[in-house]
Structure formats: structure tokens, C-alpha cells
């Protein structure tokens, strides 16, 4: 027991003396969670809560352009900046110079074109029904085109979303015009309101339901993603401290010296693992505390801790073991401290990128989603997602435990055989 205590104490002292390693393991996740959550939260708000800044140039000579602007304003989705004096030729440069991301140009013939089209539709209908109507020839105006301008940095899907919103309001206007025209042709213009209300206002609604296995009320937000994601990233970054620690002991002969002593190497490895699993648990406690108590004070969403505490502890433990096992393997295979630090850090960034730490895997191309299965960080994150966002049960966590278990066994065996090859074990 005294041997184990001494071994644990030695590991703890080595850790305490590794100031850079401590900073990387404890300061880095706090900074990452803090910075990335703020950045992503503003993006979430831009889509979910904030109004989208929209520059509108309405040069329509009729009233339909104004109606469209009015509908867009009333939707509450856009913060409209009307600048009707701007010429279409200079709209691109105006958009960029005003710092707006999107602009809508409504041409002069907008109302005329819509009305002309409505007239045509009404005429076809009246003729087909054999009803008498006003046959006075009117000037044909072709269907107008709106121009949508966007900053090149704006994501394509974001632009499409905004265009879809405009398109849906255009349907409202066009349908309304057609109904008005048909009723007018039938000389019952004053009775069009009822039909318009039935056709335009009374549309199929969509209820949004988030798929969860329990009654969890946690809503996907920047905090729910970033706190676990960057905690996992920081856990795996222990490769810099633990990996180089092992390389040092291998190179300076401490491990070989231990081989001449009446002790088992398992005590050494167990102590290392135990100390670093505790470090990982402390990392989680620190970043989660930040998510629960500090981020809300900064106006960011609060981290909702999952109900299943035992499952949460199990996910934290298996994630820590995966991180520790990876660090041990890098430490066993690296020839120098520089190799352990360089390869270790870069590999974690790559694993993080393909594992969905930086951007969620569902937005990745198909082949990258396949590769994400090979990242231990992906499975750790998946475990936290099951707990945090899907109110996960043990059933849901089975795959996570299976993949991480395989990864841990692979790393431990790799470490064992490499140290055995070097006759350290």
C-alpha cells in the first residue's frame, strides 16, 4: 500500500511541477469553452433569435413592392434597412461598404408584372369556366424578377433559407393578387376577403418536436455543444503532459531502474492512469461548473446537467480512460519528448476536427462522417450528446462504450507490447 501511495505521490508531484501541462489541461479548456461559446452563441442567436440585417432597395412603382417589404418587416425575421435611392448597379458595392450580409432589390416593374400575370391567370380561368368578363386588352408586362444579393462569406444554405422566406411571402402576394383579379372580373371584388383568408392565412402548420428519449428540456445551444466538446478536447490534450512524462522516464533510464527493483511495473502504470483520470474528472468538474455558473452570468445559455448522474460518471470515466490510454501509447511510441508533444497535439487536433469537436459531424461530407467513426473524440462527444441533448439511457450508450472500450484496449495493448519490446515490462 505504501508503495502504491508513493507511486501516486510521485505522479502527482511530477504533474504539479509540469506548469505548461497544467495550463494546457486546465486553462485551455476554460478559454476554449468561453471564447467558442460566445462566438457560436452569437451565430445561434443570429439564426434563432436575432433579426437578420437586410438591405432593401424598393424601386417598384406600384404598391406590391411595399407590401412585400411590409410582410418581411412584420415577419420579425429581418431588420430592414430601406435605401430606395440606391441604383441597382451600385448595390453590390453598397452592400459590402454598409457591412450588410444580404440585400433585396425590387425592380420598378414589380407590381405591374405581378398584376399582369394575375390578369392572365384570371382570364384563363374565366374563359375556361365560360364566364363573361372584361375583355379590354391590357398591356402585357413580363413576370418580374427580384434580385437577391449576398456577401460571398455567407454560407450558401443560409442564403437559400433567406430566399425561401422571401419566396413564401411572394406566394402570399401573388395568390392575393390573383384572387382579387378573379373576383374583380366577376364583379364581386368586395367578397374576395373570405377566400383570401381561407387560402392564404389558413395554411398547414408544422409542429417542431425534438427527438429525445425522455422529458429532457435541454435545448441544443452553444453551451450544450461547447462545454462537453472542448472538455473532451482538453482531456485528450493530456497527451502533452503524460506522453512526454513517459518518454522522459523511458529515455532517462528510470523505467529500466525500476526493472531492477522488487516492484511491478503495473504499480507505475496504474498510478499514472489513476492520477490522470482524476485530472480528467477535475477538468470536467471545472468546465461544467463554468457552464452552469459562469456562462449564464455572461448572458450565455446555462449548461443543463443530465438527470442520469451514474451514466454521466460512466461517460466521464470511459472518456478519461480513452484519453489516458492514448497518451500512454503516444508516450510509449515516441522517441523524443518533442515527438510526443508535436505528434500528440496535432493528432488530437485532427481527431477533434474529424470527430465533430470543431463542427458537428452531420454537416460534414459523407466520407468524412465515415472517418469520424475512427476518432475517439467523436465517441466521447457522442456519449455526452446522448446524455445532454438526447436525455440518453444506458441503451443509447452501448455503442459509445463499445467503441471506446475497443479503443482503450487497442491503446493499452499497443503500449504494453512497445514497452515489452524495449524490455521495460
Amino acid at each position, binding site marked *: 500500500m*505504501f*508503495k502504491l*501511495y*508513493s*507511486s501516486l*505521490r*510521485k505522479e502527482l*508531484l*511530477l504533474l504539479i*511541477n*509540469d506548469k505548461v501541462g497544467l495550463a494546457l489541461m486546465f486553462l485551455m479548456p476554460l478559454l476554449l469553452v468561453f471564447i467558442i461559446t460566445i462566438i457560436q452563441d452569437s451565430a445561434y442567436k443570429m439564426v434563432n433569435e436575432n433579426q437578420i440585417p437586410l438591405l432593401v432597395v424598393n424601386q417598384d412603382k406600384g404598391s406590391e413592392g411595399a407590401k412585400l417589404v411590409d410582410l418581411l418587416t412584420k415577419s420579425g425575421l429581418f431588420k430592414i434597412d430601406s435605401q430606395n435611392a440606391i441604383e441597382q448597379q451600385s448595390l453590390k458595392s453598397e452592400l459590402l461598404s454598409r457591412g450588410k450580409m444580404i440585400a433585396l432589390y425590387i425592380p420598378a416593374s414589380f407590381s405591374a408584372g405581378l398584376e399582369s400575370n394575375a390578369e392572365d391567370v384570371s382570364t384563363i380561368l374565366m374563359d375556361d369556366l365560360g364566364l363573361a368578363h372584361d375583355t379590354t386588352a391590357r398591356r402585357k408586362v413580363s413576370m418580374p424578377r427580384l434580385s437577391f444579393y449576398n456577401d460571398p462569406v455567407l454560407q450558401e444554405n443560409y442564403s437559400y433559407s433567406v430566399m425561401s422566406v422571401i419566396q413564401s411571402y411572394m406566394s402570399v402576394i401573388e395568390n392575393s393578387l390573383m384572387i382579387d383579379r378573379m373576383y374583380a372580373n366577376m364583379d364581386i371584388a368586395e367578397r374576395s376577403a373570405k377566400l383570401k383568408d381561407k387560402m392564404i392565412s389558413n395554411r398547414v402548420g408544422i409542429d417542431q418536436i425534438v427527438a429525445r428519449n425522455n422529458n429532457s428540456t435541454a435545448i441544443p445551444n452553444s453551451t450544450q455543444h461547447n462545454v462537453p466538446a472542448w472538455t473532451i478536447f482538453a482531456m485528450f490534450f493530456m497527451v502533452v503532459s503524460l506522453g512526454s512524462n513517459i518518454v522522459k*522516464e523511458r529515455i*532517462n*533510464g*528510470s523505467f*529500466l*531502474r*525500476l*526493472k*531492477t*527493483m*522488487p*516492484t511491478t511495473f503495473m*504499480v507505475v502504470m496504474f498510478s499514472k492512469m489513476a492520477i490522470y483520470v482524476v485530472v480528467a474528472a477535475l477538468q470536467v468538474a471545472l468546465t461544467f461548473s463554468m457552464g452552469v455558473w459562469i456562462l449564464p452570468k455572461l448572458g450565455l445559455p446555462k449548461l443543463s446537467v443530465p438527470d442520469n448522474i451514474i451514466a454521466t460518471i460512466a461517460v466521464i470515466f470511459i472518456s478519461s480512460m480513452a484519453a489516458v490510454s492514448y497518451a500512454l501509447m503516444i508516450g510509449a511510441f515516441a522517441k523524443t519528448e518533442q515527438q510526443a508533444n508535436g505528434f500528440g497535439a496535432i493528432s488530437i487536433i485532427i481527431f477533434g476536427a474529424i470527430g465533430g469537436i470543431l463542427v458537428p459531424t452531420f454537416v460534414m461530407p459523407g466520407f468524412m462522417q465515415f472517418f469520424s467513426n475512427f476518432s475517439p473524440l467523436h465517441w466521447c462527444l457522442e456519449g455526452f450528446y446522448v446524455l445532454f441533448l438526447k436525455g440518453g439511457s444506458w441503451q443509447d450508450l452501448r455503442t459509445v462504450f463499445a467503441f471506446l472500450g475497443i479503443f482503450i484496449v487497442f491503446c493499452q495493448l499497443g503500449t504494453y507490447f512497445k514497452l515489452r519490446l524495449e*524490455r521495460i515490462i
Partner: protein
Amino acid sequence: MDQVCIQIRGVCKRYKSAQEDSLSEVSLDIMQSDVFGLLGPNGAGKTTLISILCGIIPVSSGDVRFFHNGTPYSNAERKSRIGFVPQEYAFYQELTARQNLDYFGAMYNLSQNRLKERREHLLEVLGLEKAADKKVGTFSGGMKRRVNLAIGIIHQPQILFLDEPTVGVDVQSRNAIIRYLQQINQGGTTIIYTSHHMSEAEEFCKNIALIDHGKLIAAGGLQHLKAEHQVENLQTLFINLTGEEYRD
């Protein structure tokens, strides 16, 4: 009567992917309470032989047996009875001398009280008392050598293996180390020692073995070997037997 402490018979060692044996048919008897010098040029096989005796690497063929007062003991038991001081500073530079001794002492199964007693004794006799709570990484080469030695002898081993224990240290540290080693040898500890300092070895060792190209080329009492080869000192004996060409 002198009793055999280590019996080495026909030991050969060839590393994986090596073309030649690093040790070839080495047979030796090392007596209890001896100061035995394993001497030879670079790459002769001294460190390989010490590593085999300490149980770090296995033999390819041959046999090594350990005895105490004529009674053999197992390899497992050997670990409690031997001390090893490698060429490298095989300890933790980030820890203090006291913390290093605490850790390695515990690995030698010392009890807490015994460990404290031995630790303070060694820090005092090896002149490390004042710097005991400073990180070893800040120590001079001589101090580090003394820490390296202290770790190897903290459990008072019956047999002490020293692989070039005084390399790169000043005269004062070397004297302190040799003086203390002589002292523990008088207390009954068998010392097996390698060095490139012929004058130091001549002063320190009672018996020597000269190894070159993995083969034992001479072994026996130092005075006897000098008389047999009609040389005045160990250095001349060494050059006569191993030649003057450079070794890699």
C-alpha cells in the same frame, strides 16, 4: 574463506538484428564482499553484462546464479538484494532529492520509518543535506551523480552494480563517492563496477575482469594480473591487452 556471490557460466548475448554477439562465452566468479572491476573499451560489452546481472535483459545462452553465504537464491529474490546505479541520471529531475529517494525507497519495499532514516543518512553522508529540498534538475553533475548513487543504495543492497558512477564529475565528488563506496564495501556489500578511469579502478578494485569485443580476455586479482603481465599499472595492462586503436 571467500564465497562465490555471482557465478557466471558461458553467457552469450546477441541483440535482435545484430550480426555478432555482444557477449560471447563469458564465465566468471565474483566473490562475496569483493570490489570487482568490469573493465574494457567502449562497446566491449560491460554494460550488457551488468544489464544481464541486474535482470534488465535476458541471456541468449548460458547461466547466471546468485548466492549468499553459499546459498543460492532466485531471480525474484535477487531484486531485493541488488542495487543498481546506471550511467544515466535515472531519476526525476523535476523532483527534489528527498522526493526521489522517497519514491525509489518505497519501490525497494522500505517501510516509512526505515526509509526516512536511510534517506536522511544518505543525504548527510553524500553531502546533499542542504540541497535536499531543491529540484534535482538544478543540481551540478557531481550532485546528480551522488543522488543517482543514493537511490541505488537506499535499501542497503548486498550487491551493488555501478555503471561508470563517477563519469563527468569533479575530483571532490569523485572522492566522496569512492570513499563512501569503500565504506559500504567494508560493511560487506559486494560491488561490481565499470569505469574508464584506470587509476580510480586500480585504487578501488580488488579483482578485475577485462572484456573486449564481448569476450573475457583476462580476469583475476589486480596485483596478480599486473605481475603476470609484468606491468606497473592497470592502464598499461589495459592497453597491452586491448590495443591502442580507436574504438567506436
